[in-house]
């Protein structure tokens, strides 16, 4: 009955999918802890709703655009719309030993979390309706094409030989640059740089970070699409890079003042981001280096962003964009066919060209992601408007968008 299905691989991909699913609400808690009390539910809901929204979009059209039969290297055809022909038997081009549906839903969770990452930049001021429309369009017009280019059979970046094991460019660089584009249209929060904008609940941030770390084992480990040595290797380097980055971050902060919980959590996430593209190609020692370098770059990038007074509020670009770029480029440095025969050697193993290919893939994502997002944001802004009114912003989005308050006094 199970034509070629391996139960161990299937178990691993299913549980990995569940782990990645958890990351979407987890990123909600990670972000919600950093906003003011009046915007907690808004932030949580903006993340969590994407799991719902993108799940339906993916079934209807997203999966076929991203992974459906290739049309000119650019996009998938509509042949798999509504999951027609996507069933319980494997699709060998993507994963020969698990049901095609398992590959489909694993990828679905990637699409959902990617959109959810963008939330971090627009918290505390974006209209819920506009956000839903933006997300639907962004998933369809930005995420799906890029996913096709990098991972789809026939996708042009894949042909080029770019390595992106679990989504450094597709997910993180993409979300980071799009977050910037969106925020440039949306504008700063009222009172930014003047009013008190304290993180209201840092334990929520820590909870989010813990669940993200946990979920990331599925994100990277699952990207091997089998429960084998490669999955294990990806799992190991994921953990080690997160560890190295978190330690690096608190040491950088300590040099200047104090090592904070917020910094620790941020560093961990940056490490997880940075190892994502590299996770199927590098050794544990390389992972330590990648984590440490990415944390340093991200740390100073956020410093710069703050000095420029851009209210890219929770640093999606600074964490995910920068982390993803550093990771993608360092994949070009540290990749080794000793880890993954199906990969390639990087600079350190005598193949400097890989760095260029990686940089090219990053650049394409930056340009495409920024441009399309900016246009999308402008169009929505001119039509239904991106932002809540000033008064709604004052009162808070929990009340104005959802008619709720997160915490009652009794």
């Amino acid at each position: 009955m199970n034509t070629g299905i391996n139960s161990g691989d299937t178990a691993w991909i299913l549980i990995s999918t569940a782990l990645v699913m958890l990351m979407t609400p987890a990123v909600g808690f990670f972000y919600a802890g950093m906003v003011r009390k009046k915007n907690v539910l808004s932030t949580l809901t903006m993340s969590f709703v994407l799991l719902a929204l993108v799940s339906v979009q993916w079934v209807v059209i997203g999966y076929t655009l991203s992974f459906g039969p290739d049309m000119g290297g650019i996009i998938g055809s509509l042949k798999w719309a509504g999951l027609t022909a996507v069933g319980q038997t494997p699709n060998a081009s993507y994963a020969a030993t698990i049901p095609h549906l398992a590959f489909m839903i694993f990828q679905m969770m990637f699409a959902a979390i990617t959109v959810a990452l963008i939330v971090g930049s627009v918290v505390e001021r974006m209209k819920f309706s506009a956000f839903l429309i933006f997300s639907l369009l962004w998933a369809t017009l930005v995420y799906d094409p890029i996913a096709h280019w990098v991972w789809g059979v026939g996708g042009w970046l894949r042909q080029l030989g770019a390595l992106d094991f679990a989504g450094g460019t597709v997910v993180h660089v993409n979300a980071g640059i799009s977050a910037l584009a969106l925020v440039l249209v949306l504008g700063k929060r009222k009172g930014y740089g003047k009013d008190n904008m304290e993180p209201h609940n840092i334990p929520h941030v820590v909870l989010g970070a813990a669940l993200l770390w946990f979920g990331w084992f599925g994100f990277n480990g699952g990207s091997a699409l089998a429960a084998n040595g490669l999955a294990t290797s990806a799992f190991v380097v994921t953990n080690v890079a997160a560890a190295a980055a978190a330690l690096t971050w608190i040491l950088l902060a300590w040099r200047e003042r104090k090592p904070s919980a917020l910094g620790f959590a941020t560093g961990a996430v940056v490490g997880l981001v940075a190892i994502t593209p590299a996770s199927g190609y590098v050794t544990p020692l390389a992972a330590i280096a990648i984590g440490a370098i990415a944390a340093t770059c991200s740390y100073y990038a956020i410093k710069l962003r703050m000095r420029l007074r851009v209210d890219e509020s929770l640093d999606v670009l600074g964490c995910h964009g920068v982390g993803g770029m550093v990771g993608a480029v360092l994949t070009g440095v540290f990749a080794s066919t000793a880890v993954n025969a199906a990969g390639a050697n990087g600079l350190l193993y005598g193949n400097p060209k890989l760095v260029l290919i990686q940089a090219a893939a990053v650049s394409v994502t930056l340009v495409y992601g920024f441009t399309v997002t900016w246009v999308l944001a402008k169009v929505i802004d001119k039509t239904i408007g991106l932002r809540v009114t000033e008064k709604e912003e004052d009162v808070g989005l929990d009340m104005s968008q959802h008619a709720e308050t997160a915490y009652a006094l009794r």
Partner: protein
Amino acid sequence: MKKIEAIIRPEKLDAVKEALEAKGHHSMTVYDVEGRGRQKGIQLEWRVGTYNVEFLPKIKMEIICADDACQMIIDTICAAAETGEVGDGKIFVSEIQNVVRIRTKESGKTAV
């Protein structure tokens, strides 16, 4: 000396603080309260339909000041905290007999 107790909308705290600052008044104590007044309760979303909340979140600001600064402070708060809609809040003024600064044990006007 006077004690000014102002009950304001939470979202107006920053504006009031800055307005007072601009007038040279810095010191104050604030805390979260819940209030009922002319403003009727608000309807919040339950899973289905709504429920009524009768006590609305407000912030109470307490300022102890010299008698002659009192009117200026009241006016400043009124100007900064007003939206014109029911629920803007109220200011209560009462007499303070003595003030002591814990650190220095100074008391009376110099301690304000």
